């Protein structure tokens, strides 16, 4: 029976470990550095592209060509840069 008890305690310890890892989970992304590099590069492009597309759609809705596309292009760029700064700050906090 010693063997079984041994297994039981080990299982208990493992379960507690898992539980505490769930409880201590912080809300920061734990991406590996190469993963974050991929994330940063595409995020910057995607934000600008989405901003421009929104501007284009609003322009054809409100018939204000070309003003909104210009404004939203810059808003998208700002959003992309802010996002990169935010991610970089999170990465620094983790270290």
């Amino acid at each position, binding site marked *: 029976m010693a063997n079984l008890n041994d297994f039981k305690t080990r299982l208990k310890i493992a379960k507690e470990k898992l539980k505490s890892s769930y409880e201590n*989970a912080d809300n920061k*992304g734990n991406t590996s550095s190469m993963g974050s590099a*991929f994330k940063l590069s595409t995020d910057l492009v*995607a934000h600008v592209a989405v901003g421009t597309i929104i501007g284009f759609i609003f322009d054809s809705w409100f018939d204000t060509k070309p003003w909104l596309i210009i404004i939203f292009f810059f*808003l*998208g760029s700002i959003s992309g840069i802010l996002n990169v700064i935010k991610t970089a700050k999170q990465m620094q906090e983790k270290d």
Partner: protein
Amino acid sequence: MATNPMHQFQVHRIGPEINIAGIDLSFTNASLFMLLSAAAICGVLFLGTKQKKIIPDKFQLISEIFYNFIAKMISDTAGSKAKPYFPFIFSLFMFVLFCNMLGMLPYSFTVTSHIIVTLLMAMFIFIAVTVIGFAKHGFGYLKLFVPNGVPVVLMPLITVIEIISYLSRPVSLSVRLFANMMAGHTMLKVFGGFVISLGVLGGWLPLGFSVALTGLEILVAFLQAYVFAILTCIYLNDALNLHH
């Protein structure tokens, strides 16, 4: 045509043409490889969970590694509230990983190198996360767009920027996976073409590059599946634990 590096991405029909209500639903090589990867996942996990040994065999070991990897990723990034979404994130990760890895085999087709496939998955995640967010927090979920401690004057600007940032999630998620897979496979094909055209004398250098790139592509195939899954966790975390 065989030397065209983009030839590998062509979708073509296998078997008869099926046309229902004007929509082409024929079985293609893309469908074949999706089915193959789903079957491979089921096969590995079935063999891994068939007999629960104290000392695991290869298949059980790899299934346990996958399980632990995803469970730890979810607990690290999204906390305990995200536990019910484990099956979804696990299947998502496994599907992307197996599609990428099957694409690394010669003469195979890479499903994830088509933007429509990755965009479908990304849009599903985006809509699901939005629905979960509204279901958990009601209209309080809109606080995501209004960060704390912003001066009132800047509020409209910041809100617009946050909305753009939220809407660009599916775009960046899908474009990242698609662009990495497509660029990598095109590069492999181009270097393969150099080996043929330079012949026995000059072909050794691009051959070496090809070997190195194949290793890199296997790393990228894994890493993209990992990034896809971890970003899903991060978005889920935003929807579940709202604090801004």
